[in-house]
Structures are given as structure tokens and as C-alpha cells.
């Protein structure tokens, strides 16, 4: 069909698509500029739409769940790393708000085609893909692609449709409802967290193919050009640019090992004796083919590589970057970068998030180590540390839901609930989302970041390890404020759909990014405004989580007991670890700083101040509104708590 497209301006493409996959109905409407302004596009708008439109008892795999694609307000514009696209739905991993994003070219392509948001509901009657070619929008039969691996499917679709289409696909993992499935694009960019690929699969949506030939109007092109040109000039001569381009994030593996945070053998310890074999240097020496960048970026942090293992066909992939390098490397006891790269390719191709996937395999390996699962459960196979063959077979059992694989298909938390016998202690997740590639036992702020992250134990919202090092790794003092500061600034990049590495690594200040945002949108906001809106989004997502899961927030915020029962046994962190009292103390501090009550429930005072009275009313109806604050609203916002290390 030909979709009516509406004029865009101020960074917006102009049109929102609503698609009912059950009926095939496609509607276009002008993008709600007020909604985009108030919720900053991207993650914020996704949070508001999910809150408003998805019933609290809706099954994440059911027709009432929405699957939203958002290109944000800055993606596709003349701005460094303006390449992100966000996905959102109620997460099948956490049963709360879920969002994830990726770089590449899809976000800009969607906006060039004329669309800011694509909101999908229902379940297609048969395998389907969404085809967008400027004003042509169609749901097409995907029977010929269903069952293909993600990395196999993309070139086939490009051959069928045209090389200039941007493609995002899921693999068999998403098709089969594996709850930690990802979405893949551009031969190796993934939206991995919170099981967005599984939601796509539940809707029988195999892929999204987009070609856009239009352009985006910005509010003040002259100012934007001036400001961005200055950023380009500065970052091109940044001292860290050359190492970044050479090694990407993988250079960080050795540092993480020598500073006692790298997860090793399912977070049993934080020091890997064979780190040289999986380091960034090993990646460059053994696997690197060439460097790769996203749309509008000159950082080239992506690495096209190959994995060569005896007895296996050579495979080509993008990565491993740090997270995959740690979670599919040291965390699985893999000693050779080619093993890690091969597993990276395997999980990418089946469509399984390498971070959660690495965590789930590691949990299975520790269960095998402890005799909680045996070869009888594994079709006669072992599941030993450092064995690619064992890991590959186990992944196949999970993807195809064979035997015990069925129980690991729900992620680490659900697998531990099935296996029991104390395995919950080392199921390394919070709220159902597996931990990222950092052990927080000797980095208390990092542990608090996992505990309180709105999508489960993910580093995306806050990463505090250098703050922990600077301010004391054995004290919890001040960590809540640091975590909250980061939880407000980092998600802003996911709202605006730009990469945060320019801020974190290349010294572009938040004020400069807000300046460019104003050039694009004409919003005329300040950095303080941005922090407050980010806090509003954070609180709304918390309310959504409580309303869906119907218990005090604190009950969901604990890490597995390994966090306080097991001290780190080896390496530079030997003997270090948290106590339960420290875990409790960090939660107490965090809730107090946020203006939530000691049970972890947001108070009406804070929700009112953020313009979320409707959410306060909803919490009150189910008895989960936080108790009134005896000392009023704490001053938690903006840069007041900006840590020294930033």
C-alpha cells in the first residue's frame, strides 16, 4: 500500500505507522510532536506508549504486547554517531518495560523513508516481514526466510530486495521464543537486551526491510553545522581515537582482568589465567579483517573478523567486542580468541544475545560442574568449561527446545527455578536479565547499578567501576548518588538515538550534545531539563514494573546470593566481596536518594513533581504507592552528584 506521509521538521521525519499484524491493517498519522518533546523520542516515547497502551496483565508473547521501532529525534541527522534505532516492548525476560537499541544504518533509513515510529500489535497469521520503501509499506510473506540464521538471512534479503535496503532480522532463536533473543542488522549489529528478538518472533515477524531516500529537516542547520563541525574537528584529533579505531572495546579485556572485575566461569572468580589468549591484542593479531563504522561515525569501533577453528568452517562476523569477549570468553573458560569469535558468530546467527547467551551457557556449565545437570540431561554430551563443541551443542538444545534446553530457553532465572538445589545462588541475573561483563563484588557501585537497573542487570544504564576504584572499592558510601547520576545521563542517548561513546570516550560534554539537540529540534532545553526528563522516564518504567509484577519494588532488586555469600577466590581481588548488610545499605541509600520509600516504591511527592500523578494514582490503587516522605523530596537531580571520575 501507499502510506500517507506527513511533513517532518525539527529533526522529525513526520509520520508514525501503526500496524496490526493480526489483521494486516496499516495506518499512518502525523507524529505526535508533543509526545516526542515531552518524552524525548526513542526510549522515553517507547516507555510512555507501553505504559499507556499495553494492559498490565498482557502476556509479553501475546497479541496485546506492542513491538515498537523508534528512530528518535537525532538519528539520521548531521550529528556524531546519530545512527541508533530503538526497539521496545514488554520484555519476556523481565515482564517489565523492555528496550534495546543498535547502531548501523536502520534508524537513519527509517527516518529517510519518512517515519519516526512504527508501532506494531497483534500476531501475524504466518511468517511475515515488514517492507518499507519510502511511501510503500507492506506486510510480506516471509516463508522463504523463516528458519534462516540472522547472518544468513540478511544477504539473501538484500539480494532479493536490493543492496540499498537496510535489513533487521531475527534467527531461529527468536522464531522459537527463546526469551533472550536479539535482533540483528548490518551483519553484526544487535539489539540484544530484554528479548526484543523473541517478541518479534512471537509476532511471526521475521524481518524489517527499509529503504529511505528522503532527508530530515532540522531547526537551525547553520548552527548545527557550526557546532557539529567543532565536534568533528576536536574528536578527530582526540588522543584516544587511534587506539579506539585499532582495538574497539576489546582492548578493555586485559584491564578488566587485572582489576578484578572480569567474570570468569560464571562469575565464580574475577581473574582469568588465560587472558592473553582472548585479549584485544589477540583479536587484532588473529581475527581482524577490517574496521567498521555506523552511519555518520568516524570512530570505526566495529571489527569485521573471522574465526578459524580446527574441524570447523571458517566463519565471518563482527566482533567480539568487550561484552561478548568477556561473557563468551573468560566466563565460559575459553582460552583462544578464535573460540570466542566462533561462539560470537554462532549466537549472532541463531539470533541469541551474546551477553545473555554467554550468561546462560555459563550457568549451564556451572550446573554441570556441580553435578546439577549431567550427560543424561545433555543427550550424552558434556558441558565443560572451555569446550566450544559442548557450548555449541547446548545452544542447539536451547534454540530447538530439546530436553533440558527447554528450561534454559527462558533465561538463567527460569532455568534456576527449574533446576533448584541451590542453583539460584549462582544464577547471575537481576529481574530475569543476565548480568553484563563485570563482576560487582569488588565494585559495589557496579553491583548497585545491576540491582537497580530498570531493565534488569545491565551495564547500559550505569557503569561505575572507575568511580569505585577512585572512591574506595570496599565502601558503599556515596555509590547510590553516582548510580543515579549515571542512570539519568546514559539513557538519554537511547532517547535521542545517538551513540553514547562520544560522551564517554571522546570528551563531548552533555551540554554540547544538548546544544546540538536544540539545533536539530528547536526545543531550547538545558542539560538540567534533560536530566529531569530522564528521571521522569526512569520513574515511569519503575511504576510499570511494579504494576505488572505486583510486589514491593525492593523484592525485585536483589542480586543472586553469590554477591554476598562468596568472596572472590583468586587473582588481585582474592578475598574481596560484599556483605549482605552492604547490599541492604546500598538499597536503603538508593531509595532515599530517589525519593522512594524503604520498600523501593516511588512516593507520590516525587511522582507529582515529575508530572506522573497518573502513575501515582495507579500505584495507590494496588497498594504499592510509596509512603510519604518525612523530609520532603530529596535533591537528587542533575549534576549535583556528578562524580569526580566523570
Amino acid at each position, binding site marked *: 500500500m501507499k502510506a500517507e506521509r506527513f511533513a517532518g521538521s525539527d529533526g522529525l521525519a513526520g509520520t508514525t505507522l501503526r500496524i496490526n499484524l493480526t489483521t494486516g491493517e496499516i495506518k499512518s498519522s502525523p507524529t505526535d510532536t508533543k509526545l516526542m518533546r515531552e518524552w524525548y523520542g526513542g526510549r522515553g516515547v517507547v516507555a510512555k506508549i507501553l505504559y499507556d497502551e499495553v494492559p498490565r496483565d498482557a502476556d509479553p508473547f501475546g497479541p496485546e504486547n506492542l513491538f515498537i521501532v523508534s528512530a528518535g529525534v537525532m538519528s539520521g541527522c548531521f550529528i556524531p554517531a546519530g545512527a541508533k534505532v530503538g526497539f521496545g516492548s514488554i520484555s519476556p525476560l523481565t515482564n517489565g518495560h523492555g528496550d534495546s537499541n543498535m547502531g548501523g544504518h536502520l534508524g537513519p533509513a527509517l527516518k529517510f523513508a519518512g517515519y519516526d515510529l512504527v508501532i506494531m500489535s497483534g500476531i501475524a497469521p504466518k511468517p511475515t516481514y515488514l517492507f518499507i520503501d519510502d511511501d510503500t509499506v507492506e506486510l510480506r510473506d516471509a516463508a522463504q526466510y523463516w528458519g534462516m540464521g540472522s547472518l544468513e538471512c540478511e544477504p539473501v534479503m538484500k539480494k532479493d530486495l536490493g543492496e540499498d535496503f537496510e535489513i533487521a532480522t531475527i534467527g531461529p532463536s527468536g522464531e522459537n521464543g527463546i526469551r533472550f533473543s536479539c535482533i540483528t542488522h548490518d551483519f553484526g549489529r544487535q539489539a540484544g537486551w530484554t528479548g526484543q528478538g523473541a517478541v518479534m518472533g512471537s509476532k511471526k515477524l521475521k524481518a524489517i526491510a527499509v529503504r529511505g531516500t528522503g532527508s530530515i529537516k532540522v531547526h537551525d542547520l547553520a548552527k548545527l553545522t557550526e557546532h557539529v563541525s567543532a565536534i568533528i574537528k576536536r574528536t578527530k584529533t582526540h588522543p584516544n581515537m*587511534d587506539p579506539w579505531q585499532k582495538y574497539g572495546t576489546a582492548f578493555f579485556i586485559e584491564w578488566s582482568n587485572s582489576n578484578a572485575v572480569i567474570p570468569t566461569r560464571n562469575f565464580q572468580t574475577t581473574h582469568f589465567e588465560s587472558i592473553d589468549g582472548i585479549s584485544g591484542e589477540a583479536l587484532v593479531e588473529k581475527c581482524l579483517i577490517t574496521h567498521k563504522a555506523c552511519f555518520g561515525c568516524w570512530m570505526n569501533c566495529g571489527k569485521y573478523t573471522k574465526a578459524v577453528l580446527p574441524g570447523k568452517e571458517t566463519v565471518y562476523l563482527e566482533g567480539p567486542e568487550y561484552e561478548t569477549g568477556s561473557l563468551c570468553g573468560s566466563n565460559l573458560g575459553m582460552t583462544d580468541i578464535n573460540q570466542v569469535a566462533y561462539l560470537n558468530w554462532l549466537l549472532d546467527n541463531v539470533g541469541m544475545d551474546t551477553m545473555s547467551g554467554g550468561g546462560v551457557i555459563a550457568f549451564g556449565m556451572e550446573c554441570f560442574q556441580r553435578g546439577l545437570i549431567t550427560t543424561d540431561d545433555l543427550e550424552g554430551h558434556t558441558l565443560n568449561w572451555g569446550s566450544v563443541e559442548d557450548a555449541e551443542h547446548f545452544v542447539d538444545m536451547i534454540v530447538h527446545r530439546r530436553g533440558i534446553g527447554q528450561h534454559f530457553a527462558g533465561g538463567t532465572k527460569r532455568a534456576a527455578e527449574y533446576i533448584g538445589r541451590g542453583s539460584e545462588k549462582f544464577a547471575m541475573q537481576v529481574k530475569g536479565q543476565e548480568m553484563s561483563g563485570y563482576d560487582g563484588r569488588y565494585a559495589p557501585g557496579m553491583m548497585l547499578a545491576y540491582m537497580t537497573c530498570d531493565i534488569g542487570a545491565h551495564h547500559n544504564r550505569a557503569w561505575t567501576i572507575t568511580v569505585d576504584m577512585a572512591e574506595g572499592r570496599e565502601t558503599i558510601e556515596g555509590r547510590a548518588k553516582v548510580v543515579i547520576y549515571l542512570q539519568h545521563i546514559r539513557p538519554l542517548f537511547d532517547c535521542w538515538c545517538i551513540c553514547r561513546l562520544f560522551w564517554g570516550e571522546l570528551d563531548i560534554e552533555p551540554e554540547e550534545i544538548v546544544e546540538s539537540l536544540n539545533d536539530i529540534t528547536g526545543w531550547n532545553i538545558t542539560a538540567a531539563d534533560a536530566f529531569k526528563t530522564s528521571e521522569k522516564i526512569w520513574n515511569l518504567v519503575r511504576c510499570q514494573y511494579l504494576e505488572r509484577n505486583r510486589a514491593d519494588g525492593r523484592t525485585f532488586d536483589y542480586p543472586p546470593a553469590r554477591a554476598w555469600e562468596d568472596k572472590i577466590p583468586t587473582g588481585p581481588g582474592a578475598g574481596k566481596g560484599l556483605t549482605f548488610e552492604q547490599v541492604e545499605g546500598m538499597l536503603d541509600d538508593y531509595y532515599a536518594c530517589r525519593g522512594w520509600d524503604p520498600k523501593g516504591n516511588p512516593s507520590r511527592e516525587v511522582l507529582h513533581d515529575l508530572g506522573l500523578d497518573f502513575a501515582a494514582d495507579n500505584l495507590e490503587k494496588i497498594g504499592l504507592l510509596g509512603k510519604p516522605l518525612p523530609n520532603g523530596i530529596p535533591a537528587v537531580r542533575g549534576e549535583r552528584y556528578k562524580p569526580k571520575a566523570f
Partner: protein
Amino acid sequence: MTIFLKAGGQLRAKLNPDVDYYTRKVEIDGGKTIAEILDAISLNPAFVALIHVDGKLKDLSYTPSDGQTIILQPPVSGG
């Protein structure tokens, strides 16, 4: 001899640049390793994830020569 240390990101403030936004000039006796140079300016090497000299990786035991520029890379703030 004179050594130029460069750093950005989280390391920049710790380095206290005095030449330009990223660069600090250090006057020090010859024959010192990077570890000794960092110690002399009270910069904890734990905050350095990677050392780059003339496009090549070096470690803390490397002894720079007069006039060389040493790039100190901080850890990525969440990969």
C-alpha cells in the same frame, strides 16, 4: 628529558593537562619507565587501560625517549 603524556575521557582530569586540552608535559630524568613516570606525577596506573606509543602498544615497563608522546587510554565506560 621531556615526555608528553596525552589522555582523554575519564583520564584527562586525572592527568592535569598543561600543554593543550589533552596533553601534559613532564620533565624527568632519562631512563625512567612509564610506571615510574606515572608514579612521579601521582597518576594511579590502574586507571590506564592501554598505552600507545607511535601507533604501537606498550606496557608500563616501556622506557620512552626524549620528546616522545605517550597516549594513555582509559577503560571504556561500559563496553
